[in-house]
């Protein structure tokens, strides 16, 4: 049985709702309509009274979820698009993120962010905000790249006693498929070697994993074996797995879709050079989106974000160094 990335997310929510009465879903249009992307399709019928439509009030949506969470519930909040979490920003970074540290009372909730670029979505329906949320103490930030991770990491996230920012990539929702769901998986906090290699390490996550794997295929044709690490979680970030790979290859490229200043790629490079400077045979490199808002037109968008093509170019420069 084949299942998509989006269906895996829905199945994880169905599991969570089945396993724990404390779980409920909250978001705009997620009830009988099933959500803008149909992530919650049918769940309102299957779990009456536990899948609630929210008004267009992201700040109050998060505040409500936080109040429920510190009072024993385990809410899963859907932002219609990651970009709109800017309205919930204060409740996420100042209320949810600080709550356990300040009071000792846990705040277990999951904020689902439909993230990343898709053709024609433009500046306000395409953002990748994992770097913003990871900067704030008290948040766990997950970026699943595979159907199996989307499923198992969301299920695991709901069980954690901390606020989790769950960055789902819209580009993968319908196109990415797998035959079935994993019964076990790596725990949150562990990265995965998505492809083994010896000439260079390519660290990436979310939709960029698939562009990166294509780029690795291209380089294989030139005889270069690229090791691809899928971070899965950007906070915590599995430095050990990354360092172990760099120890094998001596070369590092970090690829992400978010804006270039700071963020995941800078964090990964900083960790590698501070702890594993001696492992590097060449300057580590990074590739992110361009430093402009995300363009609407496919011509521009295709150049704004990294692609298998531009990643291959970077890899060639790196292995040729």
């Amino acid at each position, binding site marked *: 049985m084949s299942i998509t990335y989006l269906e895996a997310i829905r199945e994880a929510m169905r599991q969570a709702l089945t396993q724990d009465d404390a779980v409920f879903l909250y978001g705009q249009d997620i009830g009988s309509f099933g959500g803008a992307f149909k992530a919650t399709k049918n769940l309102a019928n299957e779990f009456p009274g536990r899948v609630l439509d929210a*008004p267009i009030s992201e700040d109050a949506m998060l505040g409500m979820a936080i109040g429920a969470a510190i009072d024993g519930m385990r809410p899963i909040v859907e932002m219609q698009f990651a970009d709109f979490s800017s309205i919930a920003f204060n409740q996420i970074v100042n209320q949810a993120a600080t709550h356990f540290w300040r009071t000792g009372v846990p705040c277990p909730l999951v904020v689902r962010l439909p993230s990343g670029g898709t053709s024609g979505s433009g500046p306000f329906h395409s953002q990748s905000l994992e770097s913003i949320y990871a900067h704030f103490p008290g948040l766990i930030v997950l970026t699943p790249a595979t159907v199996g991770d989307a499923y198992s990491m969301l299920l695991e996230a709901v069980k954690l006693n901390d606020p989790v920012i769950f960055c789902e990539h819209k580009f993968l929702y319908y196109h990415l498929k797998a035959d079935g769901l994993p019964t076990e998986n790596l725990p949150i906090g562990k990265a995965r070697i998505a492809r083994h290699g010896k000439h260079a390490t390519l660290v990436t996550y979310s939709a960029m994993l698939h562009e990166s794997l294509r780029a690795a295929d291209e380089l294989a044709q030139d005889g270069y074996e690229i090791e691809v690490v899928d971070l899965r979680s950007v906070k915590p970030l599995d430095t050990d797995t990354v360092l172990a790979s760099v120890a094998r290859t001596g070369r590092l490229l970090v690829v992400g879709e978010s804006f270039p200043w700071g963020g995941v790629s800078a964090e990964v490079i900083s960790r590698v050079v501070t702890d594993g400077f001696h492992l590097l045979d060449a300057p580590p490199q990074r590739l992110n989106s361009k430093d402009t808002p995300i363009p609407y037109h496919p011509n521009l968008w295709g150049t704004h974000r990294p692609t298998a093509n531009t990643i291959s170019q970077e890899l060639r420069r790196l292995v040729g160094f």
Partner: protein
Amino acid sequence: MRLVKATVARSLARPITKMTSTIANSPSGTDLDERFAQGFKWMLLSRTLEEKISSLYGAGKIVGGVYLGKGQEAFSTALAMSLQRGKDVFAPLIRDQAGRMAFGEDMIDTLRTYLGSVLGPMRGRDGNIHRGRPDRGMPAMISHLGAMISVVCGMLMARRFRGLTDVVGASSIGDGGTSTGAFHEALNLAAVEKLPLVVAVANNQFAYSTPNDRQFACRDLVEKAAGYGIAGHSVDGLDLAACLEVFGQAVAQARNGGGPQLVVGSMLRLCGHGEHDDASYVPAELKASAQDCLKRAREQMLARNLATPQQLEVMEAEAYEVVQATVIQVQNEPTPNPAQETWTPLASSWLMEGIA
């Protein structure tokens, strides 16, 4: 504050009375007739254009979302026609194709933005309804609902600082948009500064799939006016003449120092939230009983002897032709070339740095 109080009092006196116009209660029959006929033209042109955009989308010629104003043209047109082009400010939202045209936006701006022509105001950087010409009094909406109202407040403050006192600024919002904190903060700020702001709330009974009863709990959104100490007006959004009358009053009051005006119109969206959406969530009986403001206006054009059936058919044919011609022109225009993009978001381009 006296003026505001007075109008508030009025709005409290009849919080939910809907204005329905007759030639009788209009200031001047002929004047209203001219404006009605003009309004009908904008509504017709907008509907014709949007039907074309819808079919272009269906044919895969448009990338990204398509959001139409079908069923809301009367309300949108009347708001824009009550403003003065080249002087006032209008911040349209996603269902304001008709109002945009009535305010002076060229049809070609719409098509260039939807089709990604590099010659359009957004140059392919942004698309569909995310367009505007701030230097012509029409800011370009961002997606985040409610965010444009305070921007209009700022444009009015700028004009006040420059000594221009009789400028009016208008902003559209939907029933769902009234739930945003941005809506609240902006209306309150406007009330404190007593700005000549008109906020038009198009209550089309749904926010995407969410019905009013999951969005707010007051009887009528106009009841919010008193809480801000501003004037409130209600109108039947399907009745072009009534809309022209109420917006005419609201804009005049704002221009004459009456402070912010909240105008709530009732209607039903006659299309999906976007063209990807079949509006399955709208109950069948509601769909069945739904009226079309354009159809109504067309009937009134005849009833008011503002046009003969033949003249209407000519108008419709002309609208179709100008839309077709513009589409063909735009389809032959260049799309953006990434190699020619400057890739700099800064006006101070010398401060740009090439990081990736």
